[in-house]
């Protein structure tokens, strides 16, 4: 019997029925991720990377193939695969603390009230948002909302942390500070992370591996690049590091020469 990784995608494919026949969005996706690994999935818009993340989350059922997590088949969504959504998706009628507590109450149902409360505050502290515990999402900036979104996800103690373009809606400076926050948290918790992104620097800076996807339809994994940079990584030092620039160049080459944006090519 072959060894199966902590998170293993085997022969994943998905197609949707359309009036013009079946449309295949993804095909033959095989991906093995070890425990504690940080993997970035990168590709042009419409390549199905978000669909792939939703399949791992269990929100979308693949037409073919199986996702294994620690030996179990993934067939439905669950709190062991926490998702950080691009639009943060905090519930606006709850305070920051209540938003995180909703997740904690569900994943730590057996624990006493005070322990759950402490855990909520501890996680808010990790993302430096404890000061806003009693605020509502409407009162926070985009970056702060996403910090709370991260707190909610890590508070669930997930086996895999899934991030769907978590910083895509933020301005460049806020994005950088959130990336630093994620790196700091990752250094502490050593989660297994799958992150969708379309930002080359973000992928190379944060990830242990950058998985590049070909263009849709029928997209699949085109290349799998290990980023051998030592941690902790510092964005200022990285700017001059030859390894960093080499990895960056590889990804850029893939995205802009081998598989350039399908829209530009058609034009």
């Amino acid at each position: 019997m072959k060894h199966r990784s902590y998170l293993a995608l085997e022969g994943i494919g998905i197609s949707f029925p359309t009036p013009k026949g079946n449309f295949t969005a993804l095909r033959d996706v095989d991906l093995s991720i070890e425990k504690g690994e940080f993997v970035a999935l990168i590709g042009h818009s419409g390549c199905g990377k978000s669909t792939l993340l939703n399949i791992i989350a269990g929100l979308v059922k693949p037409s073919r193939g199986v996702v294994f997590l620690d030996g179990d088949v993934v067939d439905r969504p669950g709190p062991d695969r926490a998702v950080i959504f691009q639009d943060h998706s905090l519930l606006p009628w709850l305070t920051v603390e209540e938003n995180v507590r909703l997740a904690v109450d569900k994943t730590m149902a057996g624990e006493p009230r005070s322990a759950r409360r402490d855990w909520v505050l501890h996680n808010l502290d990790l993302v430096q948002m404890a000061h806003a515990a009693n605020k509502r999402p409407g009162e926070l900036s985009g970056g702060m909302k996403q910090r709370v979104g991260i707190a909610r996800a890590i508070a669930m103690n997930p086996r895999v942390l899934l991030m769907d373009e978590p910083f895509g809606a933020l301005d460049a400076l806020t994005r950088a500070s959130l990336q630093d926050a994620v790196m700091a948290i990752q250094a502490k918790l050593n989660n297994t992370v799958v992150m969708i992104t379309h930002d080359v620097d973000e992928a190379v800076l944060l990830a242990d591996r950058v998985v590049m996807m070909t263009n849709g339809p029928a997209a699949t994994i085109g290349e799998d690049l290990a980023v051998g940079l030592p941690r902790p990584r510092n964005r200022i030092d990285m700017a001059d590091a030859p390894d960093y620039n080499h990895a960056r160049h590889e990804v850029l080459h893939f995205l802009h020469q081998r598989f350039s944006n399908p829209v530009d090519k058609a034009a």
Partner: protein
Amino acid sequence: MPSPVRLVSDMESIDTSPAPVVEQVREAPPAPIEPVPQRSSVIAPTIAWVRQVALTLLPTIMMIGALLMVWEIACSSEGATLPSPSRVWMESYDVIVHPFKGVELDGLGFKIQDGGDVGIAGHILTSLKRVATGFGLSAIVGVALGILIGQSKTAYRALDPLFQILRTVPPLAWLPISLAIFQQAQPSAIFLIFITAIWPVILNTAAGVQNIPATYRNVGRVLSLNPFEYFTKIMLPATVPHMFTGLRIGVGMSWLAIVAAEMVQGGTGIGFFIWDSYNSSLLTDTIVALVWIGLVGFCLDRLVSWIGRRVARQA
């Protein structure tokens, strides 16, 4: 997905537009900051506040004054068919000045004298009691049905066409049927209110449920909320703003229906009062009643929207 603004055409007259209400309720924006003049550190904040209120109300008051003046001039001739404001004041003096005739307060409740001689507030209170019952029923049933058709595609396909047809039936058209079913005036009037007010409640609640953002649903799925938890933690609070838009329109419509119902049924109530004063050729009394109806309807609308804002903030 069906358009959430299906009802807009008939809500326009009652409620400007549902969307801004929704936003307001959900985001609960900070109260607009009163512009306090910089140099007026001498002026106390209360005075600034009074001035602000006066500035807001002044145009309304001036407009009312102007309209009354035009009305007075237009209807001041001998042969005028419509009584002028001064004639309304003189001829209906008793009705205007003694609205609480025949109404006794005991503790928190009130008692309305039986028989004809009751002040206009007494009629209004009787009508409000009927509205409270009929509208209360339509709120409960309407929200339940709205959630059902919002949540289940099959139920939506089965029931929505019926609702779309039935909601266009005017309140008075239900009256013969309602009288035939209940045989008595009181339950018929309540049924009439119920059947008039329920449609906007159903359709807006359903639209609210159908428009719960996909990400909120996904949050519920990732957290593996069970159906009950999903209902209380996500669906209900996410739907509250739409629900209260429906309830606001509904309360306005039930107030329209009560007048129609009581005009035909007689006995007590503000609708009866209008019909009675018309039959007694007391047109000035009718005008006084119209003002009362308008003011009470306005207050009902404000009350429901205020409750909606409170609930949305706490939900």
